[in-house]
Each structure stands twice: as structure tokens, then as C-alpha cells.
């Protein structure tokens, strides 16, 4: 379902400080897989994840998600892909701090394209259901800036799955959490994977990577195993 073919990404292209972050990366992730991408700092794992998340572009190669070639679609279509097909979890949670947990989870539901947008009541019900899935239903009306790191990450995961995307991407999701909370968050990911969701986690924590069904190592912008 996710296929990268010979992806090349260069930062500051055409400038004296041009830097090729990915040198022809090819990768296929099947539906229902839980994959960890590991590598040292600056290896290109986050760049790869951002390309997968459609929040960064690439210079050459081809990226397909569910058979659709990314890079050949309009900005509007790209936004729809980010909204419908991809759920993103960031290390710093990337939550709107003053919003409640419920409001945060409702954001991707609010941004659904015209034909797919549900009624407000329904959106709220879905968001509550997602919070329930990550055991955060009791915190639905709390502003997220009052929550702990682990709770915030649960809210971020609930938001990532709100639109039932085919792909969940996590960029160092446990990087800002303690060991106990890391364990809890990984359990959430594993549960989601067991429900059939495809998950790609970028991490430098081998203990996290070991919990995934497949580990991809990246070094100097190349996949080495």
C-alpha cells in the first residue's frame, strides 16, 4: 500500500550548501504492517517520514500510497490525502495547546473535504470514540496544556486515527516520554496495529523498534537493511 521508489531529496538545492538527505530510497510497506525506521541522528529517517506524511516534497523518484502517485496531485488533493489517508503523531505531540482534547481530535474531522465531512454531532461522537480508544475519554473537555506528556501523546494518537487513515506515521512518538509512559503508548500502537492499521514509527529507541514487526535501518540517506 505504501511504495517509495528511488526517492531522492536534496535540501538547499542549487545553493552552495546543498545537501542530499535521501539517496534513492526505495521501500514498500504492506497493509497492516508495523514498521520501525531506525537510524542515527541526521540519517534521514525524519526526512523520509515527512515525505511519507506529504508535508515535505522530494526531488525525484516516485511515492505511491494506495496506488495513487503523490507529487502528481494538486495541493488541494495533497491536503485531502494528508487528511484522509495519513495520521501523524509527532514527538512534541503537535497539539493546539489551548484547545481541549476533544477539540484537538476533531481537527482532522473538521478539515475533511466537502463530500466526506460529517455533521458536527457525528464528528463529536467520533472524536469521543477515538479518545475512548486511547483511554482519554475522561479528559475530553480538558485543555491539552493541562495534560501530562503521556496523556498528550494519547490525544495525538486519537487525533491521528480520527479519520481512520490507512497509514499512521509516528515521528519519535516516545522521544519525550518516560519509560512507563513509553510502554503505555507503544501498547496503544500495538493495539491499533492489531486492529489492522498500518503503522510506521521513526525512532532511535531500539526497545521501541523491537516491538515492531519489521525494522528498517537508514544511514546517510540510504536504507541499509
Amino acid at each position, binding site marked *: 500500500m505504501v511504495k517509495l521508489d528511488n526517492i531522492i531529496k536534496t535540501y538547499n538545492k542549487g545553493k552552495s550548501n546543498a545537501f542530499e538527505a535521501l539517496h534513492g530510497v526505495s521501500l514498500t510497506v504492506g497493509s497492516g504492517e508495523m514498521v520501525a525506521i531506525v537510524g542515527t541522528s541526521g540519517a534521514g529517517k525524519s526526512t523520509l517520514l515527512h515525505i511519507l*506524511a506529504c*508535508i*515535505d516534497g522530494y526531488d525525484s523518484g516516485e511515492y505511491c500510497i494506495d496506488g495513487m502517485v503523490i507529487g502528481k496531485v494538486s495541493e488541494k488533493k495533497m491536503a485531502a490525502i494528508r487528511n484522509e489517508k495519513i495520521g501523524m503523531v*509527532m514527538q512534541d505531540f*503537535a497539539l493546539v495547546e489551548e*484547545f481541549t482534547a476533544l477539540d484537538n481530535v476533531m*481537527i482532522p474531522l473538521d478539515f475533511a473535504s466537502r463530500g466526506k465531512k460529517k455533521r458536527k454531532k457525528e464528528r463529536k461522537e467520533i472524536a469521543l470514540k477515538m479518545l475512548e480508544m486511547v483511554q482519554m475519554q475522561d479528559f475530553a473537555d480538558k485543555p491539552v496544556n493541562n495534560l501530562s506528556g503521556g496523556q498528550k501523546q494519547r490525544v495525538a494518537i486519537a487525533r491521528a486515527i480520527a479519520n481512520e487513515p490507512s497509514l499512521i506515521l509516528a515521528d519519535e512518538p516516545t522521544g519525550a516520554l518516560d519509560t512507563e509512559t513509553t510502554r503505555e503508548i507503544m501498547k496503544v500502537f500495538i493495539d491499533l496495529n492489531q486492529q489492522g492499521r498500518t503503522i510506521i514509527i521513526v525512532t532511535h529507541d531500539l526497545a521501541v523498534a523491537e516491538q515492531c514487526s519489521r525494522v528498517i535501518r537508514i544511514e546517510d540517506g540510504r536504507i541499509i537493511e
Partner: protein
Amino acid sequence: MKLKYALYEQNKNKLMTVLIFFQTVIVLVMIVSIISAIVSRYEKYRPLENFFQGDGLNMHITTLLGRTGQRYLPFTESSDVEKYLKKAHMVSSYSIQMTFDIDNKKEEFGSWSPVIGYDDELISAYTPEIETGRWLRTEDADTDMIEIVLAQKEESHKVGDIITLTTSDVVKESRDCKLSKPIQAKVVGILADGASPIMRPIHYGEYSDFRDYYYPFHRDEEERAIVFVSKRDIEHNNQIHAAAEQKNLIKGETCIWPYIISGPCFIQYDTGITQKEKDHNSKYLAVNGRYVFRHTSAEMRENSMEYIMNQMNMLIPILIAMIILTLLSIISSTVIMIRQNMHNYSIYYMLGMTWRKCVSVHGLSVVIMQMGIFLFTILCIAICEKTGALDRTVFSLGGWQLLGCFVMIVFFIVFSIVLSFLLIGKRSAKDILREIE
């Protein structure tokens, strides 16, 4: 959907919102005051604009005598004067030789109060500011009394009051005659404090432009009340015996003078009048008239426009400077606000919003704020105007002021949105999100 995020943006940037709010309010108040200053001047010129058109003479007449039989007596009808002039149309005001019955509100009207009459053209040309009631009408009154508008020093009378008019003591003394019976007059309007009716001001001739035709009425500076009536109303009201007697006067025999041509007077020449005819008219007026002010229409037009343009030239640079300062402030505030919001915009982008929609969220937030400022300012000014706090100032809220404020608000909105277009989406969302990490 956008509204929710736009309102959140307002809430998130409270300090900047408050800053922009007060700055914009100040600019709008400045706009209203400057436009009011210009409009108030132009609005005083506009009613007289028609009288200043083409060729003609504009005067403040004391009396204009006409030969009646063996005697020279003051003219009482502008149409009578026209007969002696060539290719001329005359619009005039009148001094009505009547006053209030001294038993009626002695404390205020014990002394002689001027009664000013107007030709219909003057009544319809300009309506001074009325506190209560209405201005004089150009139709016949629906009552059997003449209608008057009062500019009173004290609040002695109100709309609907019936006042008795009697022959002026001045007339009585000089002519030894009086009205055959007192005349009932109904108060239909009370002139507002600070109003400027058309009549001879104390310092007439000071400007040689339209301002010389307006009398600044300020209650606490007045010594007596002023009464305004329609000359046609007096003339046509059956109860006003004076009118009939006046006709006799013109015929040369009786001795009551209910009214005479006096005060502001506009003579407009027909197109095609020759210099010889103009000379004839000038000579006739010079010989038979006593006037204290006389200018050609061309002089009045030029002087008036020069005055208005000078006012604009003086005020507009102040306004432009204020707008530039606010614009600079809006630029910096918008840049700061957008930078503060970029993290959220990047989250929205990651979750399925395009940058363009992020701009529209910011745009909606700006529209809400600016329209809020607009409504707040207009409401405040309207309340001040209603409560009389703006009395004796030129500050007013009319169509031009509203338009000026609206144009400025639209300009600020457009400017802010253009700025957000230039700023939002210039950096990738992942860079902004990583920066926070």
C-alpha cells in the same frame, strides 16, 4: 468551521488584538472627525451652491426701497423687486415686524425678538439642526395658525406650544400702529443649540464666502430668542391680518409693516443677460437698497471653494500620516500574529488544510476583528451623538463618515490578508513543527 479557528486565533493573540483594536479605533475616530470637518464645511456651502451658480449678486440687505405712489417704502415681496430688475430672479429673507406678546414668557421674550421670514426656496435649500420637532414647510400649514421654529435661549417653549405674536414695539413706536388683532403661532420646531440658520451673522463680511450667510446660534451667548417663519405662511394664512394690511401699505395708504425684505438675499441673473442689464441692476440696487454685504456669485463661488480646499489640504495630510502610522503598526502586529500562529497553521496543514485555507482562517479572523472595531467605533460615536456629547463640535456620523471608515477597514483587511499570503506557507510545515521540537 473556519469561524471556530478564526475565533480561536483572536483569543490566542489577545494582546495584539487589543493593540490593533485601539489603534484602529483611533484611526476611525480621526477619519470621522476629519471627514466631519470637511463635510460640515461643504454641507454649509451646498445649500447655497445653487444661489452662487452662474451670474448674480449676493447680499445682506437692510432695506430695499421702492416707489409707491408719492412715497418710497420698503419692498415686501421679492417678486416686486424683480419687476424693477432686468433678467433677474430674487430669493430673499424677511424681517417680520412682529414679536411675542410680552405676557408670554416675560423672562425671555420681554425684549424684542427678531422674527426671520424666508422665501420657500430658502426654506427648502437648507434645514438647520433641529432639536425637537421639524423645520418650516413649503406647503400651506394644515392648522389655522402660522408655524414657527424657535431658537430659544432658555427651554421656555416646546413643540406644540401656541404663542401670541403682536406688533413689534419698534414698529409701534416708529409708525404708531399695530396689528388689528394678535396672531396665534404654533411652535413646530426648536432649533438645536449650535445650529446655524441662514441669517445675517454678527460678523458678516468677515470671510466673503458662504460662511457669511450662517448665524452661529449658541444658547448661552444669545440675548434673546429668534423666531423663524415661512413668509408664504404669513402671507397665505387668513388669520394674519397683517398680510392684508401690508398689501394696502404697498398701495401707499395704511401704516403697518408686517414684513420687509431684509437679511440674506440672492439675485440670480438669467443666462444671456448683457453687461448693460447687469449694470442697470447694480445701479438700481445701489440707489434703492441699503445693504451691508454684496458680492458677485463668481466671487462667492471662488472664495467658498478656496476655503473648502484649504481645509482639505490642511486636514488630509494629518489623516494620511495617521493612516501610515497605523498601517506600519498593522504590518508589525500582523507579522507577529502570523509568526505566533504558524505553529498552529503547520498543525492544520499536517492534518489536511492547505496553506490557502490557513490564509483564509487568518483572513476571517482579521475580518471579524476589523468589523468588530468598525461597529464598536460607529456605535460609540452614535451614542455620543445621541447623548449630546458631540454638541458644538463638527463631529457627526453621516454617510461620508461611514463610507470613509468602511473603506479604511476594507483597506486594513485587504492589506492584512495580502501580508498573510506573503508570509503563510513560505516555510515548510515540517520545518516549523521541528523548530518547536
